[in-house]
């Protein structure tokens, strides 16, 4: 029964990723056509990103392992992808539902509020806004021959991306409705067991205070096993702010690409959260496929691909050596954890810089 539920969750996640990919592709085509860059549409690697991403998600060995292990990560992933899909399609209640449940199940999707608001306000990913302004100013001043074309373009799609407030307000209302509902149901269910306070203490409190230091693929356990009591709270704050302080700068830099921003946030939280698992990696690797067109010439892709495979194979071996055979020690296992987080860092940094390079290339083509 649980198996069936997880299969269904994985399958629905893949379908939603595919639908999101199609929306992104549509938006990309529209914006490139508006910017009069049809040759880019033809020349560049024009893979159907939605199909590719859903296949990556389904065939990822990490996803399969999560499914076999009967984890609840597929359901978390489903809620996150539901949020992103609904925000892309401007469905405020569905997005609010996905957001509330994703935050309820694990705390970290709360940072997705920024990309979701940007998606609801501006719409799916598009080149930076100033390119459109540049284009419209260009067409008004310099090319009278293109006037008709640009005017028709203006009538079909508005060039300037204004922030529409109404979906965001709806979203906020629905978030409050869904969160009240969920908390009410939880309080009924937990009446005899300590109520909501106990629930928050045991779920969010546990995630934030890192009570259990059993080894996992993250980086927190090793550090907190040796930190002194006096400094424990300070370092807890440091590690959690490590995620939080990256939110705002990335949002400022990537506000024209909210879907990509959501991907970067999921990758960062999968790397730096207190109890990561391979299910989180499966999610962002699937979402990575959505941007295959823009990230086609990413550096270090070979290194990253084989690095992931290597770490996936070595990490259980080192764990076995340390815990079951006793011929290794914690450093063996933590080394693989460090390599894993290193690979994730390289992936995030490279993908962001490739995306920015892509935007710069677009800008060069528009101005030229």
């Amino acid at each position, binding site marked *: 029964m649980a198996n069936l539920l997880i299969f269904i969750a994985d399958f629905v996640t893949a379908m939603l990723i595919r639908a999101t990919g199609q929306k992104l592709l549509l*938006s990309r085509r*529209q*914006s490139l056509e508006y910017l009069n860059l049809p040759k880019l549409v033809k020349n560049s690697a024009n893979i159907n990103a939605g199909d590719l991403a859903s296949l990556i998600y389904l065939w990822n060995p990490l996803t399969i392992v999560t499914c076999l292990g009967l984890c609840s990560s597929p359901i978390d992933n489903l809620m996150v992808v539901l949020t992103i899909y*609904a925000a892309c399609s*401007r*469905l*405020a*209640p*569905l997005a609010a*539902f996905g957001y509330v449940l994703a935050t309820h199940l694990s705390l970290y999707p709360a940072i997705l509020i920024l990309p979701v608001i940007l998606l609801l306000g*501006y*719409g*799916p990913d*598009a080149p930076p806004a100033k390119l459109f302004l540049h284009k419209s100013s260009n067409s008004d001043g310099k090319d009278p021959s293109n006037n008709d074309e640009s005017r028709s373009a203006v009538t079909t*799609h*508005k060039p300037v*991306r*204004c922030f*529409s407030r109404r979906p965001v307000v*709806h979203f906020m*209302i*629905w978030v*409050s*409705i*869904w969160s*009240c*509902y*969920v908390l*009410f*149901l939880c*309080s*009924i*269910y937990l*009446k*005899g*067991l*300590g*109520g*909501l*306070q*106990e629930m928050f203490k045991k779920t969010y409190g546990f995630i934030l205070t890192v009570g259990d230091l059993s080894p996992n693929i993250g980086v927190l356990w090793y550090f907190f096993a040796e930190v002194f009591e006096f400094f424990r709270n300070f370092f807890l704050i440091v590690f959690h702010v490590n995620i939080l302080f990256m939110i705002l700068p990335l949002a400022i830099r990537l506000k024209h690409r909210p879907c990509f921003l959501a991907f970067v946030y999921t990758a960062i939280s999968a790397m730096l959260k207190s109890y990561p698992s391979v299910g989180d990696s499966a999610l962002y690797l699937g979402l990575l496929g959505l941007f295959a067109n823009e990230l086609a010439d990413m550096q270090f892709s070979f290194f990253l691909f084989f690095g992931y495979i290597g770490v996936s194979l070595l990490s259980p071996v080192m764990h076995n050596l340390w815990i079951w055979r006793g011929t290794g020690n914690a450093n063996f296992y933590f080394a693989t954890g460090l390599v894993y987080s290193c690979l994730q860092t390289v992936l995030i940094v490279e993908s962001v810089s490739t995306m920015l390079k892509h935007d710069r290339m677009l800008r060069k083509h528009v101005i030229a």
Partner: protein
Amino acid sequence: MAIDRRRPKPSRRSHFVIRETLLLLFLLLICAPSPSSSSSSSSSSMHNNNWAVLVCTSRFWFNYRHMANTLSLYRTVKRLGIPDERIILMLADDMACNARNTYPAQVFNNENHQLNLYGDNVEVDYRGYEVTVENFLRVLTGRHDSAVPRSKRLLSDEGSHILLYMTGHGGDEFLKFQDSEELQSHDLADVVKQMKEKNRFKELLIMVDTCQAATLFSQLNSPGVLAIGSSMKGENSYSHHLDSDIGVSVVDRFTFYTLTFFEKLNMYSNASLNSLFASYNPTLLMSTAYYRTDLYERPLNEDRSCSSYEWLKVLQDRLADEKSDTIVMYGLGTMILLLTVSTWLST
């Protein structure tokens, strides 16, 4: 990218619906519940300690199950937080070190032998021939000879909640002690009245697992007493199952289902007595569990009062008392329904 042009009508409709539900929910939000302990409305004393008096009245090997009943309750009561100093355990015979016991020093209440009730942490206060009606009444009223040690006294006061559990063989208006004497219902009523006069309890819960247990409470008349019996007049209480290894029945049905209820709780639980009553199934018990709540002053469900905070708390209590699982299932179903409707409306 562009601002979507929407049909104005559905959005206005859904906006109106959203406003309505929002208003309702803000009302509920204002009186957000917080866990708080209920306070007694009637008497002036505060509840500040718990006692348990657990009595097994039968001897002989074939009454093994009565010993197992009492020891199971002893274990449960200790697990839920009452320490040995506050428990008076009276066992009329020794089953653990009985010559007929193939598992020496072990007492089980289930044929799977998962739990040894007679570990190294059992303190029996009255054993063997010390369990008599006279000693039982002396314990409850507190009238002891000066030589009786403190561990054998019930040192409760006006703030105590006492659990009195008795098991053995009984009949119409009596309970048999040691196969030689009887405790009658008017004796019990008399001693409870004396306890109330001497302010030896704030609330008393009497649980009796014998045949025709309800008749034992017929004469009770003191306030603050709650009584649960395993069967009505004319009905027998039955054992649960036979352990073919030990050779006798190892637990009674009523106690078995009571233990099942308590196993789900821990020290911090707030389960109500109503849910305990509701968990008894007459078909499974093969008798009708009887409970007497008319002497109990504090209502088992809170009274409705005007403030919406109280109302929400009552709603939660009522919802939690009855099958909270089904309520939550319905809630989830409604949530999915609301989700599909709202998504369809917003497209």
